[in-house]
């Protein structure tokens, strides 16, 4: 997958940014509107795939020097950690805690442990998709 198309590369950079932003939006919207960690994660990895198409595996590896399997594990750790967190407060597993804060200017905001859990989901999805795509890509 080697394409040295300058236009594509430039366009990719822009689109990539937009998609990543959108994926973050989707991720945070999840609790209130359609969206969530899963969709967000898929979007983000979609963006990275785009990067792959524009450049090649090696370049992407340079830009994102992660072992995506470890990203997956990290995501699981987040999710499982949030889940187990409840135990330390003598609550059942996965008990969430949330509150609303009203900082000036920004208005009503919610703080929710579910977000951390969802971050885990996000990371796992990114990790998994990227692992799969990288592995298959390398084998070819």
């Amino acid at each position, binding site marked *: 997958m080697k394409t040295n198309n300058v236009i594509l590369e430039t366009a990719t950079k822009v689109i990539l940014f937009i998609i990543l932003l959108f994926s973050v939006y989707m991720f945070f919207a999840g609790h209130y509107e359609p969206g969530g960690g899963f969709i967000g994660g898929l979007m983000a990895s979609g963006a990275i795939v785009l990067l792959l198409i524009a450049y090649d595996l090696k370049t992407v590896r340079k830009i994102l020097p992660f072992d995506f399997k470890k990203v997956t594990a990290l995501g699981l*750790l987040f999710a*499982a950690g949030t889940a187990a967190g409840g135990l330390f407060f003598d609550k*059942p597993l996965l008990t969430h805690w949330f509150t609303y804060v009203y900082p000036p200017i920004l208005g009503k905001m919610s703080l929710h442990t579910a977000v951390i859990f969802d971050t885990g989901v996000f990371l796992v999805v990114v990790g998994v998709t990227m692992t799969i795509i990288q592995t298959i890509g390398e084998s070819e």
Partner: protein
Amino acid sequence: MNSLITLPLLIPLFTAIILVFFNKNVTVQRWIATIGSLLTLAAAVWLSATVYTQGIQTMDLSNWQAPFGITLVSDMLSSILVVTTSLIGFVCLLYSFRSIGVEREKHYYYPVFFFLILGVNGAFTTGDIFNMFVFFEVMLMASYVLLVLGGTKIQLRETIKYLLVNVISSGLFVIAVAYLYSVVGTLNMAHISVRLNELGQSGIVTVIAVLFLIVFGIKGAIFPLYFWLPGAYYAPPAPIMALFGALLTKVGVYSITRTYTLFFTQDIGYTHGLLEILSIITIIIGVIGAIAYFDVKKIIIYNIIVAVGVILFGVATFTTESLTGSVFYLIHDMIIKAALFLLIGIMIKITGTSNLREMGGLINRYPGLAWTYFVAALALAGIPPLSGFLGKILIVRAGIDAGNYWGSGVVLLSSLLVLFSVMKIFMNGFWGKAREYKQQEKVPVRWLLTAPVILTICAVLYGLGSEALYPIISTAAETLSNPEIYIKAVLKE
């Protein structure tokens, strides 16, 4: 609030996650795995003791009262199954250290191994029918990976078949849950039981019951749904074979037991009658398979099917006594099957073949292996005072008491052919003229042998110490035959 119930799930989960970070360093992985496995076992034993002294343990996850959240339920049955699973996991792990090979170890063998244990423990512990599906998938996904890890020809070929069958059975699982949800509008198992009992005898529920039997029957390998099993279990290396043989089908058996005691008790004549017929045919067909081959793997594999039939015959009889027998037999079979698979694994390692016709005379150089095998074989056949006999006696006694003479006779006589099949291995593999094998030197088996020896000792103690176990097992059977106890504990009515 007792968090104990979550530990047999969380410890393997975290162990698996941590192991992913250390995939390059085999030694560190082994240590982490050992510690994780021992902790799981300890937690499971502790949980079991708590269940025994304080009754059924539950946890409403995310602090949503049942039936709205997911509830974890550890009754006596599920907690002793978790103990057994953790024990077998630990032992197979020990065996793996010297047999699975560095290559596999570096390619996420251990994390996936722990995911498998997690899935199995989860399926035993969950009190929510859809969550059970999720744990089934964890377990299955881990089993696909373990089965195919290494990517040899036979592994790939059999993995495809195994995958396909299980994809279908998972699909059927979800539609069964969907049908059930349509009728009763809930997913919590205790709540389902309450609503089904309120509903009384209903045609559609009976149909759903049969569908559940098919779903779990495919996993549990009952007639006529077991065809995938001999091929799939033939492919992987010994410790994986042992893990599969001891655990995976038993999850299916457990699920049938659970649903056929908790949910579908309205039309026993039909549903349990069907189960009874199928279980008897399962025994017969399994026994025929076990005596048909001169291949050590095949012989033990078909013996799995026999045992499934025996356990389910007890479930189908559906009296407290028969259920006690089934639970006794279930635990016994998990332990002894793991031991046997590991033992034949060592035989294969020494001789380089699984064909009995090419073996012989192993007893002279490997007496410890031979005698461990001999004892394990007798335990499998249910010779007192080893582990298998009590379950079998109870199952047969209850069967006859319920008027099922033929079925009980089949259970009893199956022991003879089971014995014949495993003694065939003893007489052709260990006895007879020693042969020339690829490896001329004596293969060091002491470490490998530790694993099956531990299990065989457990089997012996299990039989001798039946009195100590009896209250535990009968508590488990009591809960099965009297779902009210389970329901009360979960819904806290």
